[in-house]
């Protein structure tokens, strides 16, 4: 997983996406948003590849003029989170069980309709897949995920 600090202007996303497709690297997920400094955005990019590919991706990203800093978020030294929204079938007899499951996972019900519940859940990859596995039997109508976002643990800053 890579954390990438970029200038906040239009075109940056296209440059980064273009770089990945051009060189045949796969993006598993990408999340982006503005940082504490409104001129700078930060992306979290999840990629699959061996050490060689990861090294190349880092170097190629660094070559882009709009990219300010690239840091690899190593699993043991970082926190990652992803937010998902799940719209699940919720018949009257299932509602209590779903609510309990939601509580156990410290998720939230954010919308309700006569036949469905929409649940918001935040967590790392393990928690999310566990939650999805448990909720699946009720019938998932749709599911949307933000992609991972992450930062290094401890007192360090990406620009350090």
């Amino acid at each position, binding site marked *: 997983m890579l954390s990438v600090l970029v200038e906040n202007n239009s075109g940056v996303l296209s440059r980064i996406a273009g770089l990945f497709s051009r060189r045949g690297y796969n993006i598993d997920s990408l999340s982006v948003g503005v940082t504490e400094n409104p001129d700078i955005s930060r992306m979290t990019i999840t990629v699959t590849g061996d050490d*060689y590919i990861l090294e190349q991706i880092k170097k190629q990203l660094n070559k*882009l003029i709009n990219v300010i*800093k690239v840091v690899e978020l190593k699993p043991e030294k970082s926190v990652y989170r992803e937010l998902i929204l799940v719209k699940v079938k919720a018949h009257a007899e299932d509602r209590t069980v779903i609510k309990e499951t939601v509580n156990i996972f410290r998720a939230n019900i954010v919308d309700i309709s006569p036949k469905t519940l929409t649940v918001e859940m935040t967590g790392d990859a393990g928690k999310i897949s566990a939650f999805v596995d448990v909720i699946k039997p009720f019938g998932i109508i749709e599911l949307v995920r933000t992609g991972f976002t992450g930062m290094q643990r401890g007192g360090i800053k990406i620009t350090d």
Partner: protein
Amino acid sequence: MKASNAIVKCLEKEGIDIVFGYPGGALVPIYEALRTSNIKHVLVRHEQAAAHCASGFARSRGKTGVCMATSGPGATNLITGIATAYMDSIPLIVITGQVSSRAIGKDVFQEADVVGATEPFTKHNYLVKDPEDIPRIFKEAFYIASTGRPGPVLIDIPVDIQKESISFSYPGAVNIPGYNPTYVGHSGQVKRALKKLKTSKRPLICAGGGILCSKASKELKTFSEKAKIPVVHTLMGIGSLPSDSKYYVGMVGSHGYSFSNRLVAEADLLMIIGARVGDRATAGFKLANEKTDIIHIDIDPAEVGKNINTTIPVVGDAKNILKQFIEKIEALETEEWVERIKALKNGSTVKYDHKKSFVNPKEALKTLSHMVDDDAIFTADVGQNQIWAARNLEIIDNRKFFTSGGLGTMGYSLPAAIGAKLGTPDKTVVCILGDGSFQMALGELATLCETGLNIMILLFNNNRLGMVRELQDTHIGKGKYFGVDFTANPDFIKIAHAYDIKGIRVNTNEELETAFSTALNSKDSYIIECMVDPKILTNL
């Protein structure tokens, strides 16, 4: 100040005295500003040539070249030229007119997303949205194009923005947080490299185009002589070490000399300087032995470790790093190795059955090498002519050799020669091309005439695409040619005359010297058309 005037002012502030371009609706305000400036405008006949001209200019003058074209087709026509410069790390500023900012995205007449389209072929590009940004953008663009690993930077300027008024002040410095090229080699890495060199029995330097970008030829010569290390080079590295230097060996790669390639395989240490280890330079990444220690010096960290595993990477500017090495290096014991190289080199000759009715390109290029000045500039196109030129021209002393090495763009050599001549009018410029590549840029003869300058065009005519023909022969099967014959080629001498350019057709080797002498001593441009045996091979 009007934004269009500000744009021209930015060029003047950067010391630009020539721009290459082709006007159009979205460039009208800038052209009006150019008309009233001291900058010379060279009107090309196709936008692609504007980029190639700027490339030839940049390479001969040693500074950034500028070209411009209008929106839509003007800009898309430029793209091959931009990509050519990008692959060969040539510093260019490319200015394109864009449709009015209010019309962008509405698919209006002559609209194209040029910033999007050139993303893969530019070092960086800009779409100007606020006219007040013009001075900053130009300052940044020139800085980015010419520093670090050079390359083209495009600035797309909507026509309505060109007409607005701005307060002009040209920034003295740039502030680009994401761009900080490394220039000086890491001293620890240099120390490690020096240690490796000391124990090497068969060291070899492979010099690339980076030596020329960083103007480090002198340092390379000093280093190779002080350390006693032989030097091979890539196609882009031609001229990085004069071919009459003591430790000069020759070109490597698919079209290099077999002895150079053999040495790469035999070396116990390969010092790659300013080369990106391209497939053509390594004959498909297979040349170097796996046990060979590799020291890779390059200003672009992304090139280190990309195509070849590196033992010791040193990132930085070749000139600086070579100086660091020169300071510390002592002569290595390479006498035996150098003797072996001499023996290999002397034993290598490519045989060709000379035919009386044709010119042998090797003979022509050797003869020419003996006759031109020591600081002449050669441009070569793409195809057999490129490889004949690369293998047989003697690039001694201050001679230069420009070709499209990375992208392999046909039609490069004529506009590049025009640009090179405009960059350094006192030098002899010889443009080498084939009948295929000539016809891709034929219209630029008019550009040449308008400049009033003289170049010599050496045309190797075999009335076909000789290199593709050879590929079909070797990869498909003997005689299985398709789509490579030009059965209705024009009379090139008549074409020369139509442009009021002098021309001589040469059918035998015996006529070469007289023809060259006439052309080189003429004040006018000359086309020497050499009739070449269609069966002749590339690696001559």
